[in-house]
């Protein structure tokens, strides 16, 4: 049942993917409201699917790679909906919808693990560690997307020869503000998640994911400190937000360590 719902979710998200493609190709706003509606329905379907999976499998829906991909997609859509409610930036959808679709699709393609559920994951810490980190990641994704939009729009304005993006993208101020807000939400979440993980696994055995996470945390830490104290804003801040999310992706996908707490159940 939960698998069926997940497939239904993919269906709804695929409309978003199609819309993003059409928007890029035709540079036009086509039926955005309908697409938004299908994303919202997809989001509820998705939440329900995850809830059902939880009750079906007897372990929290944030344990396997499949779980985590699906959860990541869910919180990214959530982050989009929240920022849309505040800023009404439909351009953000071009970044969010494809990623949500791909993550959910991957989650659906990966087969369920056959290994028994490891004892190490039977801990309340899991409920803090994983969700906060992925909520943080989704905020960083919004910061990444606004950073990219900023860089493109800034380039258009500096070159003084407006092209399609100039007309479609939001103002620099909005991109910058959204980037900053997302950071100031994402960074505390990531911090809580990392601290929780550290307490959970004391004494800490370093694995590649822990090292990469620390680098990511440091990058965002520097960015947010600069933003607060030295008024770093605009282009450099946007560049750092983009870079930061590349670290996030490396941390998430690039580091797999067998035998450590971060190896997914096969």
């Amino acid at each position, binding site marked *: 049942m939960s698998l069926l719902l997940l497939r239904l979710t993919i269906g709804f998200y695929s409309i978003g993917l199609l819309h993003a493609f059409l928007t890029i190709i035709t540079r036009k706003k086509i039926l955005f409201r309908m697409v938004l509606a299908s994303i919202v329905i997809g989001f509820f379907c998705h939440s329900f699917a995850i809830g059902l999976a939880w009750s079906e499998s007897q372990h929290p829906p944030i344990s396997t790679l499949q779980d985590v991909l699906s959860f990541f997609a869910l919180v990214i859509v959530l982050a989009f909906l929240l920022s849309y409610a505040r800023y009404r930036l439909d351009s953000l959808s071009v970044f969010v919808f494809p990623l949500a679709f791909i993550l959910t699709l991957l989650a659906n393609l990966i087969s369920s693990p056959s290994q028994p559920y490891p004892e190490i994951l039977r801990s309340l810490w899991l409920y803090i560690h994983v969700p906060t980190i992925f909520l943080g990641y989704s905020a960083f994704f919004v910061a990444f997307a606004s950073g990219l939009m900023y860089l493109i729009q800034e380039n258009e*304005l500096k070159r003084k020869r407006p092209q399609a993006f100039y007309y479609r993208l939001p103002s*620099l101020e909005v991109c910058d503000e959204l980037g900053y807000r997302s950071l100031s939400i994402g960074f505390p979440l990531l911090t809580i998640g990392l601290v929780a993980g550290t307490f959970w696994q004391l004494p800490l055995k370093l694995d590649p994911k822990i090292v990469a996470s620390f680098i990511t945390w440091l990058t965002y830490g520097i960015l947010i400190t600069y933003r607060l104290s030295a008024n770093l804003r605009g282009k450099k801040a946007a560049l750092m937000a983009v870079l930061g999310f590349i670290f996030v992706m490396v941390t998430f996908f690039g580091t797999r360590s067998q035998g450590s707490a971060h190896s997914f159940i096969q």
Partner: protein
Amino acid sequence: MSLLIVGLSHKTAPIDIREKLYFPETRLPDALENLISQSAISESLIISTCNRTEVLAHSPDINLGIHLVTDFLSDFHGQPKEVIQNFLYDFSHTDAVRHVFRVASSLDSMVLGEPQILGQVKNAFTLANRLGAVGENLSPLMNKAFHVAKRIRSETGISNSAVSISYAAVELSKKIFDTLNGRTVLLLGAGKMSELSAKHLTSQGVSKLLIWNRTYQRAVDLAKTLQGEAIPPEELFRHVERADILICSTGAPGVVLRKTDGQRIIKLRKNRPVFIIDIAMPRDVDPEINKIDNIFLYDIDDLRHVVDANLKHRLKEAQFAEGIINEEVQSYVNQVHSLDITPTIVALKKHWDLIRQEELEKTKKQLGELSTEQEVALENMTQSIIKKLLHGPISEIKSVHQTSSGSKHIEMIKKMLGLKE
């Protein structure tokens, strides 16, 4: 659809011809009355602006109608027909519908997508409506045209980019600052140009105006009229960092703002962006300043480039708009055709006449040889029976087809009279 348009526009006629055929608002009532008093013109509407004069009319005889309207234009304005005819165009039927839609949607305007034309068309319609010059044919057409114009404005970007220098500056500010509310503008040089741009920006929500001029008194005077704050000549660099937007138009022979000044301003502003518009001749600002992060410098040529790009953008959007026009013309034509009852009446008459002829032949065979007079009498009698029998249903069809349930009634009548489709 007996619709016709005779008119001229900036595309076919120079200003000295357009002004001769222009209808001032005070003369429009006379003109409309004159038009609809003609027997071949049942409804009429005149759109007259500085860029175009169009007479829209409903007439059962299109060719005669076009002829009459042309004569009317010539007589009313006292211009020889041979002269104005070279500049006039005419459209009829579907082409006329398309033309009205294109005009109302600003696809035929001199500045593509300019918003005024829709208002002008609406005014023309309101006036004609008040005078009773438009009715069951032109009213639905005009309402559809307003709908199409609205649809095009919301579904394409044809009207949402700036096509004048001063508006391009406002548009750029909004691409940087999102909103001009609460922003501070500094006028560097208190000339006519900067005064105009300042007025423009204040109307867009700019809240604080700083004015600097080499001659202090001039700054003070302008500050008074614009309700701004004058800055003494030697204090420029103490205030310059307060400005989000700088408009430079001093008459200084050399550079007023150097790159190093820019770096200092950005530092003092803690990286908050500055938009500098340099309309001075020679330029006041070192172009290198644009290379500093968070400073955006536009000179008059740059603004012109933006306007050009916007016009190109509008042209592209106009292609989408033409697609919408095609779609809407088709839908309107279909709608009108479904209301058209002529084919129904013709079919009815034909159907009954066929029956009459069949029965007449049968009777003739039974009667044998008849004299010519007898044959004519039979022919006349049967024809008049049909005519009298059909009179009721046909006038019923004519009277109900305008009502909302008209098509249903007509279907019923057709069925009762044995007309199958």
